[in-house]
């Protein structure tokens, strides 16, 4: 099973706002066991597995702590896999099915994945932190191996032979001696076989994979190209009405007065007020929008800062609450005093928005005090718990279903839309659909934290880094430690007061920390008069990091092509969440200082690759998304209001921003598979910044990168 130190997992979870109760009630699971007919049901108690793998209990567990059913093989041979992970474009519906098919020895198309349905799947912490591949992959593979071994055992009994004499393949167990086969369905003989997995059965090594490890297209692609897939905003319920929430004029505003006399006159419109919450329901979405526009509300809000004061504010308000002590090695002070090269620089990153194309949305339906909600979220069980808390009902009364979702990027952790839809549905006495507008998305969702990063460093003239002092204010501790060997270092994250509601974003602060660190590495390399790649390789002994650097350097013909005025090449790299990445960017900078990224090459290594085609898609997508944060995306705000809450004012990457993208996959079949949804983004911004320096001699230290 996957192992991750409790401390690391707790820190990861904290950064994803997992502060709510991490309990799991699994009463409904037992009802579920009764409902199934014949076939094979594979259950596991993650507790025993966790103990064997050295993981403890308490906060930060990833898998349910009591017995749960993970895999069911029906008599007709259909396999259903149950997981609390959700699909939002990262392609795990396909990659997890590949892993089950591999271990169970069944064809891909015999597998259905039931995902993110709180009444059917085992409890899950949530789909974030690149945890699906390293945790859920081995978990489901373990269940599949257990099922296969059980079926082989049943066949061995039926044929009265040793299990080792039999072969499982293609959904059948074969006895080669008598040249007979029995399908998995036949083997169950109409009985219900329940297998409770204990311990760690042996998984198939990646070197022997036949289905996993192969490029595989999205399993249900046809539903998407025909428009038939139902995302949350597409769900229809009988008698359903449409909801809309009245938003305050600014953050932290309180409602002074409300005049709904005009809105309530509109046909089919109901106005709901509950404390500060005001919303409407109407017969269609357009009427709901117009009814909200007809509400006359007065709000009172305190004076708040603007983006112009943001970075001084973050520093001035740091460490007021709990702060972790710095990570210290050696003496930075002494090493700095002795260093031949000394640098001190400050880097900043702006607040940015996830801007998933499917906005936050929910459909909520009450039957008595039982609540059913469809919503696009990364954390179905946390949303279930959030709803239970909001409406003072037991979690067993709440059923959350997550249709495959129109992306999230770390932005869909909170139950906001679900709670709003449920509140309106309770008042209306009818199912309610609620879809946030783009402006609501840009304003009322949470943001990737802005941050200030200060680095002081010292090195010898031969390019050996000797001192490293690093302070990150507000943006976060992910990937804050340096992957380079530096004997004297002091590294610290300083939480600050949050002027805007902030939360997780693809890669968390790994993007900000890589931007600052890898920009600074470039500055040090130039100060030492060394090639930036050679400088990095000189200061690391991490073979996996060196390998991706060398792989991308080869692709980019690094060192052969020289930067010239207006045309620059930059490099950056690092590792995080088991993924090792190195990125080379090639830019053209016009006389007007406009930057065009013409080519991005990236080498990525995340252990044994499960689906190379899906992985390439993720990496190219992360590169495109990374270009937005690198060059154009920044939330502007003033006094509690967002100043650019529209795609016309907040530029996300478009077709004409697309560079030539070349991805180099490094497949390490000897290493466990790691996730790849996040880390491919981290090298993009620093590689671009370093390329701009190579093209212009100007060092840009703020994301998004803008020439002064």
């Amino acid at each position, binding site marked *: 099973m996957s192992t991750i130190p409790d401390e690391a997992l707790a820190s990861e979870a904290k950064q994803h706002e997992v502060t709510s109760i991490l309990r799991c009630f699994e009463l409904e699971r037992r009802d579920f066991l009764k409902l199934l007919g014949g076939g094979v049901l594979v259950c596991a108690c993650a507790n025993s597995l966790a103990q064997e793998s050295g993981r403890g209990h308490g906060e930060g567990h990833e898998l349910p702590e009591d017995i749960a059913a993970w895999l069911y093989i029906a008599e007709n041979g259909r396999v259903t896999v149950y997981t609390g992970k959700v699909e939002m*474009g990262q392609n795990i519906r396909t990659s997890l099915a590949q892993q089950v098919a591999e271990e169970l020895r069944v064809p891909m198309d015999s597998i259905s994945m039931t995902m993110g349905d709180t009444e059917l799947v085992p409890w899950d912490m949530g789909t974030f932190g690149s945890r699906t591949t390293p945790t859920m992959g081995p978990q489901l593979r373990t269940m599949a191996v257990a099922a296969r071994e059980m079926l082989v055992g049943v066949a061995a009994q039926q044929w009265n032979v040793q299990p080792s004499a039999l072969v499982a393949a293609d959904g059948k167990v074969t006895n080669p001696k008598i040249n007979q086969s029995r399908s998995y369905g036949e083997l169950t003989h109409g009985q219900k076989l329940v297998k409770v997995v204990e311990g760690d059965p042996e998984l198939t090594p990646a070197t022997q994979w036949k289905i996993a490890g192969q490029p595989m297209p999205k399993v249900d*692609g046809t539903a998407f190209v025909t*428009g038939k897939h139902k995302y949350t905003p*597409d769900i*229809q319920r009988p008698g359903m009405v449409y909801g809309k929430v009245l938003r305050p004029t600014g953050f932290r505003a309180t409602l002074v007065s409300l005049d709904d006399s005009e809105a309530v006159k509109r046909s089919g419109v109901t106005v709901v007020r509950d404390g500060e919450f005001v919303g409407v329901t109407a017969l269609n979405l*357009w009427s709901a929008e117009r009814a909200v526009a007809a509400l006359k509300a007065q709000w009172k809000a305190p004076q708040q800062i603007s983006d112009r004061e943001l970075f001084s504010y973050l520093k001035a308000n740091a460490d007021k609450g709990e702060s972790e002590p710095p990570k210290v090695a050696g003496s930075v002070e002494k090493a700095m005093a002795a260093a031949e090269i000394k640098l001190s620089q400050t880097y900043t990153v702006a607040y940015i928005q996830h801007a998933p194309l499917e906005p936050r949305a929910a459909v909520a339906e009450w039957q008595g005090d039982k609540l059913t909600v469809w919503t696009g979220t990364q954390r179905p069980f946390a949303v279930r718990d959030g709803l239970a808390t909001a409406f003072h009902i037991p979690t067993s009364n709440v059923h959350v279903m997550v249709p495959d979702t129109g992306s999230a990027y770390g932005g869909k952790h909170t139950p906001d839309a679900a709670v709003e839809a449920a509140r309106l549905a309770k008042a209306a006495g009818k199912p309610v659909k609620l879809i946030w507008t783009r402006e609501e998305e840009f304003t009322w969702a949470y943001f990737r934290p802005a941050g200030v990063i200060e680095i002081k460093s010292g090195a010898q003239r031969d390019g050996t880094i000797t001192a490293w002092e690093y302070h990150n204010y507000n943006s976060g501790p992910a990937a804050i430690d340096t992957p380079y060997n530096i004997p004297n270092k002091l590294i610290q994250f300083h939480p600050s007061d949050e002027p805007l509601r902030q939360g997780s974003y693809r890669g968390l602060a790994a993007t900000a920390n890589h931007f600052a660190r890898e920009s600074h590495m470039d500055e040090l390399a130039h100060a030492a008069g060394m090639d930036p790649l050679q400088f990095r390789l000189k200061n690391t002994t991490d073979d996996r990091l060196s390998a991706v650097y060398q792989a991308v350097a080869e692709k980019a013909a690094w060192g052969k092509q020289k930067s010239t005025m207006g045309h620059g090449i930059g490099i950056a790299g690092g590792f995080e969440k088991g993924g090792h990445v190195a990125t080379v960017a090639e830019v053209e900078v016009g006389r007007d200082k406009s930057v065009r990224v013409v080519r991005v090459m990236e080498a990525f290594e995340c252990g044994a690759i499960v689906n190379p085609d899906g992985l390439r898609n993720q990496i190219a*997508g992360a590169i495109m998304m990374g270009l937005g944060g690198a060059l154009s995306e920044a939330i502007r705000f003033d006094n509690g209001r967002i100043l650019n809450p529209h795609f016309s004012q907040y530029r996300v990457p478009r077709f004409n921003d697309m560079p030539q993208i070349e991805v180099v996959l490094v497949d390490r079949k000897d290493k466990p598979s790691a996730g790849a949804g996040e880390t491919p983004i981290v090298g993009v911004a620093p590689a671009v910044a370093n390329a701009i320096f190579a093209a212009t001699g100007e060092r840009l230290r703020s994301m998004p990168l803008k020439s002064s």
Partner: protein
Amino acid sequence: MAATIVVNGKPHHLTLPPDTPLLWILRDELQLTGTKYGCGEGQCGACTVLLEGKAVRSCITPFSDAVGKRIVTIEGLEENGRLHPVQEAFLKEDAFQCAYCTSGMIISAVALLSSTKTPSDAEIVHAMNGNICRCGTYPRIVAAVREATQAAKKA
């Protein structure tokens, strides 16, 4: 206002305020939910449909402008149970991640290929630039449009 719109070859008689966006008529009145809301301002292309063969943003097309026009949505591209070559090409290139933008992308590509038989990559980028794929699947989408062009040539 009471009027008829023709969607995917079928007439629908509707009584709605004239400023009702076509997007919400398709989705809420006709249950054609393949056309997506992304921004409501014509900035992202998720709601793209064909109106008299041209790509338009249905979120900023009022009912009054759609009356009497032939409208085709993603649900109307299949013919006799066969996918449109652009749909086939998106499948072949696996040109999506979350796929929320896919309907709009496919419709924009269909409109492009109906006016320009063999667009260059630059023409594809230009024609599709109003469609956002936040997952950043642009290279594969361009490859899919190119693929559909090739398929059309062979056909």
